[in-house]
């Protein structure tokens, strides 16, 4: 017996209607139902930050958010960070410029988190960046370059 509910999600400025079981997370809805695979599934338990998206402009973990809970909220994923075909977002550009990744799997989450971190004003020092980016793990250990990229992107965005 299926127990599906119909929900409407506002993702990157576009409304999507989908039918999901209530237990489906926002992360799985994005990846498996809407083919928005830029948002990554790392631990799926709120410990790694790979699934970070913005809800109403604030960074949250899509693996611990039910898709149904996100109805009526404005969701932004890595795909919606810059306008289609336009230039990269300054944080994306900074990650390229500073080689702030190795395998790249954590990168979309790092970037979404960094955009919010800069917007929140938590880039006053490298220590502050470390503290406020601590929810995004990088198993390759690219942290020094990630710090550089966030620091430099913050300057560009200010």
């Amino acid at each position, binding site marked *: 017996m299926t127990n599906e509910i119909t929900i409407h999600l506002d993702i990157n400025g576009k409304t999507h209607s989908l039918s999901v079981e*209530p*237990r489906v997370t926002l992360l799985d809805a994005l990846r498996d139902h809407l083919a928005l695979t830029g948002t990554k599934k790392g631990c799926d338990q*709120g410990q790694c930050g790979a699934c970070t998206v913005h809800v109403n402009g604030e960074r949250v*973990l899509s693996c611990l958010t039910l898709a149904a*809970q996100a109805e009526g909220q404005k969701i932004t994923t890595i795909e919606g960070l810059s306008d289609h075909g336009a230039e990269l977002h300054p944080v994306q550009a900074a990650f390229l410029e500073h080689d702030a990744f190795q395998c790249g799997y954590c990168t979309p989450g790092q970037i979404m*988190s960094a955009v919010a971190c800069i917007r929140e004003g938590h880039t006053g020092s490298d220590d502050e960046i470390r*503290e406020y*980016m601590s*929810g995004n793990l990088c198993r390759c250990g690219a942290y020094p370059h990630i710090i550089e990229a966030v620091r430099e992107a913050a300057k560009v965005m200010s």
Partner: protein
Amino acid sequence: MRDFSYLRAASVEEAINAAALPATMLLAGGTTLLDLAKCGVADPERVVDISHLTGLDTIRVDGEGAFIGALAKMSRVAVDAAIQQQFPAVSEALWQAASAQIRNMASIGGNLLQRTRCAYFRDPATFPACNKRSPGSGCSALEGVTRNHAVLGGSDACIATYPGDLAVALTAFDAVVHLGERSVAIDDFFLLPGSTPNREHAMQPGEMITAITIPTSVAARHSTFIKVRDRQSYEFAAASAAVGIAFEADGKTISDIRVALGGVATKPWRARGVEDALRGRAFEPEAVKQASRLAIEGAIDHGANHYKIELAPRVVERAILKTGAMA
């Protein structure tokens, strides 16, 4: 995670009525409930989403104290200017907890109700024995790896540590948990495991946290929260201390002192022994050091967690010295 039915509550009344049904859980930030559902620890048949209810996220500070609505986000409370000024230990406990993402999601009410990080509790497939999950089934931790387990407040049935930071600061400053019409002092809200570790707090089925209040005090205004952990950020406390101090007019006699411990006990732990030893005394480093040892009065270790008995008094001492220097 097994499937469940989903109801988006339109009012507190609707949420409370629905929550009284068996196998029903309230969903606010989701950071505990969805995590535990994925672990196989939480297995609700019905989930009642209260995250969209309006009017429950107020943060207000006046002469009497702070009023924090249950759905206020951790991140909002942490940066509230009046909270930072009147209750610095509360703000510090919040911003040092979890990650920026989780603090944007987690509600204050849900934060209090977060469950233990005991690895045996969180892994029912491998460790069926857990008195907290299945009363009477035994405790896998007592004969297991106990590095993160409690040295205070444990029982033969359970030594799981209460993991939160905020509740430690709230316990130091006599916060009150509001369950609609009923209110419970925070120290009575959290229960010792005893023979019923499955009962963690004083809420009854169908009750819901609606707000937390914290009375104003000089000690709360001159307070700090120190958290020591295995890594610098995004980690639960190995030991933590919330401390607040007020002085007599002479500026050196302690008129009021509050001390609470986290990361070492089965519930947020008020260290009244330390407070009693220092109240009325002159603020003096050697006296602080001696008194801080009383923080672990009655502690029992289980081998790997012995270090907490050494660590906790040092964290308390450091927090008292830091608070005294700024009061």
